[in-house]
Structure formats: structure tokens, C-alpha cells
């Protein structure tokens, strides 16, 4: 059955109703937004409180561990001292090639066995001064050959013959200045 609908309400009333409805929608949206924000704020605050408690626990544990390490403070210091000493000793040992003992030994091994060494002087700069006595000229030759050999020049940088004299018995006295590397 088809009916006829007639709105007999005044026009102003319809406008007011429309505005009221619109306002209700705005109100609902606003309340929803506010409630959502309040919920979000509560959740984040709660999460932060839980997290802070966790962090506090971790910090306490951290302090305990720090104390645990501090118990061994002396051991750590001893280890640092040991490491420091060993590093410095290694540094000295590695520069041992400059030692006069090494230079002294190297130069002496180059000298023929039948040579008599009267004096040797080796200073900090590696300058090797020696006075030797050779029984004959062949020994002097072999001394010069040995000192000027390739093996000799791995240790020696220069050789200065200061004095060469022959005595009555045929022996030779040689004063030499040897520069080492």
C-alpha cells in the first residue's frame, strides 16, 4: 500500500535538527579522538614505566659486574705493567744489532787467526780502532782481503789505515780505523 508522507514540521525545526545531528557527529568524533589519545598516552606511559624498571634492574646488574671487575683491579694493573715492561724490553732487544758486542764480534771474525791484536777500541758511534801485529806481509794481505771482501762490507763501511810499520824481525804493525754500519 503506497502511502503519502507529508512533513508538517516547521522549516526552522528541520534546520535545527540537522545542525544538532551535525554537532553530535562532531562530538562523537572528538570524544573518540580524545579517548584514543588518552589510551595512547596511558599505553606509552605504562610501557615506559615497565622499561624504566627493566633498565633499573640492568643498571643494578651493571654495577655488580663493575664491582666484580674492580675486585681484579690489581691483577689488571699488574698485567698493564707487565705488558708495558715487555714492550719496552722488546724494543731494546730489537735494536740489539747496534750493540758494540755484535760489531766487535763481527769485525774480529774477519781477522786472520794468526794475527795478534794488541789493542781494540770500539766507541758508541761504531768506530773500531785497532792495533794489530801480523807475523808477515802475507798475513797483512789476507787481513786486507778479508776486511774488504763482500762479507766484510756487510759490517764495515770504511777502512782507514793509519799506520803500517815493519819491525826488524819481519813482523808488521798495523793501526787501523774501521767504520762500521
Amino acid at each position: 500500500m503506497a502511502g503519502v508522507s507529508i512533513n508538517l514540521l516547521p522549516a526552522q525545526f528541520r534546520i535545527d535538527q540537522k545542525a544538532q545531528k551535525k554537532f553530535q557527529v562532531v562530538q562523537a568524533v572528538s570524544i573518540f579522538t580524545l579517548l584514543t589519545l588518552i589510551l595512547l598516552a596511558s599505553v606509552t606511559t605504562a610501557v615506559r614505566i615497565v622499561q624504566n624498571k627493566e633498565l633499573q634492574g640492568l643498571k643494578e646488574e651493571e654495577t655488580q659486574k663493575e664491582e666484580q671487575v674492580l675486585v681484579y683491579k690489581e691483577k689488571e694493573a699488574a698485567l698493564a705493567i707487565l705488558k708495558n715492561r715487555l714492550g719496552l724490553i722488546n724494543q731494546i732487544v730489537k735494536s740489539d744489532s747496534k750493540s758494540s758486542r755484535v760489531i766487535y764480534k763481527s769485525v774480529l771474525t774477519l781477522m786472520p787467526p794468526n794475527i795478534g791484536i794488541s789493542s781494540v777500541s770500539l766507541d758508541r758511534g761504531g768506530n773500531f780502532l785497532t792495533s794489530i801485529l801480523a807475523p808477515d806481509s802475507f798475513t797483512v794481505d789476507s787481513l786486507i782481503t778479508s776486511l774488504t771482501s763482500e762479507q766484510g762490507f756487510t759490517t764495515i763501511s770504511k777502512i782507514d789505515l793509519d799506520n803500517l810499520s815493519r819491525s826488524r824481525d819481519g813482523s808488521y804493525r798495523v793501526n787501523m780505523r774501521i767504520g762500521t754500519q
Partner: protein
Amino acid sequence: MKKEKLQLFYAKYKLLIYPVCVTLVSILVIVFVIYPQIRGYFTGVEDKKRINERLIKLETKAKELEVIPGDLLNSQVQSSKVALPPEKDYTSIIGLLQRLSAEVGVALVSVTLDTVKGRDTGGVTSFSVKVDVNLPRESFDVFLSKIESSPITMRVASISVDSAQTSDSLLASIIIDVFYAPSPKTFGSIDSPIEKLTAEEEVLVEKLTSNSVSVPVTSSIEESPGSNIPRGKSNPFE
């Protein structure tokens, strides 16, 4: 009258006033509550991560330090301090030279100590000791080797030898550099990792420990109470 005006104003603009107020409140809640909390949360996550990492480091460090035998470490430190004293230790040097010369059969004619300020090379300082000796020819090289392989780190700096052709002995004057270095004053922080010894250093420390047994410690090694070895009467004229 004013109230009525206000009510009228609200009734007219409530559709605008209501959302504006809610928006303002929302902004305030976001700015002053939600944003700081979210930001704080992420900072907290980072802090947690950092603390956890530090906890692992500290735990590892504590365990590593725990397993290091204290007695052995102390003896190694002592040996290293004997080998490289923290200060000039004349008494030890004289004692050591006397011992070495006795071992090799060398007559120690004189020992001259250099009392001027030591030479500093790369953190290591040295002072000179001049030793005049009278010794058999064949013992000279042994004596030099003994000096350089002695428990105290020393190096032959210069040599002067005179020998009479008729005699079998030598007169030698040796200048020895004796090294020392002050102990480090500052050590690493609690977070710094343990300084582990390298294989080379392990070998060296073993050598030092086996070498240094018979050398008395006379320098002021302050850390260990065991190092206070009596050095004689405090007042020799008593």
C-alpha cells in the same frame, strides 16, 4: 548579560569551537605526553642494548681476569721489573757485575757509575756503567755475552781492549748501557679490554722469569710487599 552573550556565541559557533578545543587538547597531549614517552622509549631501547653489551664485556673481562693466576702474574711482573727497573738501581748492577765476573773468572778492577741524567730513547732511559776488567783472552767474549744476556737489560756500548803479546790476559774497559723505565702511572678504564700478551711477549716473559731468580730486587718496587728484601742496616754506623 555577559553570560547570555557567551551562550549565544557558543550556540552560534559551537560546531567550530568544539573541534578547535579538542584539536588543541589533542596537540597538547601529543606534544607533552605521547611524543616524549615514545622518544623516551626508543632512548630506553638503545640504553638497554648498550647496557647489555657492556654487561657481556664486563662479564668476559671478569672471567678472563679470574683465570689469570695471581701468583704467577706477580712473579712475572717482578721479573720484568728486575729486567727493566723503574729507576736507576746501582746496587743491583754492582751486585750483578760482581756475580757475572765471578762466574766467568774475570777480575773486576773498577766499576764507575754514571750519575748524570740518563739518555732517553723512546720511553726507555739508560745510564752508563764503566767496567775495567782483567781477564783471560778466551773469557772476554763469554763475559760480553753474559752482560747482554743478564737478567737486567744491558747493552755493551763501547769496548776498549789492551793486550800484552807475552801475556794471556787482557785489560778491558767496557762501557755498558743499563736501561730503566718508569712504570706507567695510568692504566686503562674499567671498560678497556684486557691487554693480552702476544706469543713473542709470552716467550720473553718465560725467559725473564727463568733468568731473574738469583738477582736481588733492590729498587723501590712499591706494589708488592714481597719485594721489600732487607738491604742491610739502616744506619751502618750504629
